[in-house]
Every structure is written in C-alpha cells, then in structure tokens.
C-alpha cells in the first residue's frame, strides 16, 4: 500500500476546517444556483460548488479527492448539464411540433395551465437552465483541477527518481 502523498505535514486544524467547510460550501453553492428571485445564477453557483471540491482535493490529496468525485460522476455531470439546458430548449420545439421557438418555455409546459405561465417558466429557468449551467461549470473546473494536480505530481515524482 502506497503511503498518502501530501505536500505538507498532517495538520488537525486544516483537516477539520476543510471537512467542515465542504458541505457548507456545497449548500451555499446550491443556494446561489437555484432560484430566479435572488442574485447569482448558474455560472456563479457552479463555481462555488467547484471551490468546495477544490478545497477538499487540495487538503486531502488527489487520491482521496477522487473518491469524493469519481471519474464517472465527473464526466457524467460535465455533459449532463449541457444536455439539460439544450434539452429544455428542444422540448419547446418538439412538444409543439415546431410552432414554438427554441427555449420558448411557456409554450409547451402542461403545468402552465395550473400554475400560470410565470410559475412554469420560472421553474424551468431556475431548475433546468440554471442547474444545467451549474453542473457543467462545476464538473469542468474540477476536472481541470485534477488534470493540473496530476501533472504536478508526476513531475515531482520524475524529478525525485531521476
């Protein structure tokens, strides 16, 4: 079993702080991401979600970090976010057989009869569009961070051996 690779010595304060901040940052990211009434949106919320993972990876190393965000989940989220956004737009075209335009969300949603156009539309924008953007941004940033961290580790390893 290979020993855990860290740049610094194990520190209780850093470990506990990172563990405490991880779920709270995720919660704050969701709060920023979801909802049309408040400030923020998909891009900002996704970035905050990504910082939670980046903090975790920085403190506990890439190996432990990969357990929190496995490769399959990362790849899934990065394309699923775009899929959500794009699909929400296409549903409007498909459900009306081309009568409504792309992303003209009030046109097709059956709930609009019950909750009104405004409610259905805000629901779609806040959940499908914003969450779609947020997931793609989060997964992309985490994936890039992993790649850069691995490159550095590999270089350190090569330098140590040679």
């Amino acid at each position: 079993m290979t020993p855990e690779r860290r740049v610094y010595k194990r520190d209780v304060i850093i470990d506990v702080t990172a563990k405490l901040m991880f779920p709270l940052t995720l919660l704050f990211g969701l709060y920023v991401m979801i909802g049309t009434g408040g400030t923020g949106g998909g891009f900002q919320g996704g970035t905050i979600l990504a910082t939670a993972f980046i903090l975790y990876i920085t403190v506990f190393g890439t190996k432990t970090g990969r357990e929190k965000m496995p490769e399959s989940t990362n790849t899934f989220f990065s394309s699923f976010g775009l899929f959500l956004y794009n699909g929400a737009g296409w549903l409007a075209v498909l459900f009306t057989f081309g009568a409504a335009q792309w992303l003209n969300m009030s046109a097709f949603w059956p709930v609009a009869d019950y909750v009104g156009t405004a409610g259905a539309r805000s629901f779609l924008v806040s959940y499908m569009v914003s969450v779609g953007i947020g997931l793609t941004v989060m997964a992309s940033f985490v994936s890039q961070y992993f790649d850069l961290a691995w490159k550095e580790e590999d270089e350190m390893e090569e330098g140590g051996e040679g």
Partner: protein
Amino acid sequence: MKLPEMKTLTIFGIITALLLIGLAIYTIEDLPAYGDENSPANKHIKLFSIEDRGYAKELNESILPIEIKNKIEELGFNKKENYPPLDEGNYEIEWVEKGTLEGPWLYSEDGWNVLIKEGELFYHEPIKYYFIAEVDGNLSVYRYNWPVRVMELTEEETGMGNAVTSGLADYRGYDTMGEETVILTGAIGVILLLRRRGKL
C-alpha cells in the same frame, strides 16, 4: 462486424452532441435575419394616442408640439425622473419611411423619430428616443430604448420577475448556451492535453 460496447454514460454525451448539431441546423433555419423588425430590441412601447390637431404639420417643421411634450412629461419621463428633457434645441425630429433600413433598424411603419441631440447629458450621440406615427388620423406616441424596454416589459414577455435572469436565459438564451459549450470544450481540451493514459 461487431460494434464496440457502449457505456451508459456515453449516451448522454452522444445525445448532447446530436442536440447541438440539431440546434446549429435549426438556428440557421429559424433565427430571424439581422435587423428583424419584430426582434425585441427593435420594437417600441406605445405610450398614448392623441388626436391630430395640426401636429403633423409642426412635426414636419422639426418642432415637437407642446401638447405632446406635456403629455410625455406627465407620464413621468421628465427631468425630475432622470429622463432627458424635451426642451427646444435638445431634440431633432426626422421623418422615416416604411421599409427603409438604417443601421440595425428596419421601420415597419411611417413616422417621426425624436432624436436626443449630441452633447446631451445622457448620450454622446443622437439616440432614437420617441417615435410618433399616424394611425387613423390620430397620432400615436411610442418609445424605443432597449434597456428601458427590458425593465418595463420583462414580466409581460418572459413571465419572470427578475430582469437579469430573463436577460440571461430568455432574451439571450443562445448566447448562454454557447458560453456553457465553451467551458465544456475547454475542459475537454485540458483533458486531451494533460491527462496521462491509464489515469482516471
């Protein structure tokens, strides 16, 4: 020939790619041409209608009739509310014909444009502010101006209370989706360049 086995996760990627290709084709087919008269930026908001008592003659002589001016200022578009004042010398009036194209504007009806002149406190160049058209012997006064229009009509047009969200996800929906695609493409590029084989 046997096709390679496909993972469940790849399906979402493939569908996303297909939807993007479809969107590209659809956009070319369906998007209105540049300068479309019905696009939100080119529409104007109707303020009021007034009976024509020789105002058309005054407008042709580049004078804004005092009755129209007073009525506009009564509606709240006065200097007190930080709107440009309609005093003489501040504005210019020009006649536009139906169907003419000037810059991004295509006029769908005849009328007079009220331009706020250069050197004004608010703008550095003359900007189209009001539009007066003759309809059945009455003069209808409209107002253009894109940001003002977004503030006033966002709830009616998009059904959302937040003007920023409606701008991001509704008026500029194509733009936002492109931005998201750019971020995904960047991540894929980093994966291709930096990731070593066999390390996931």
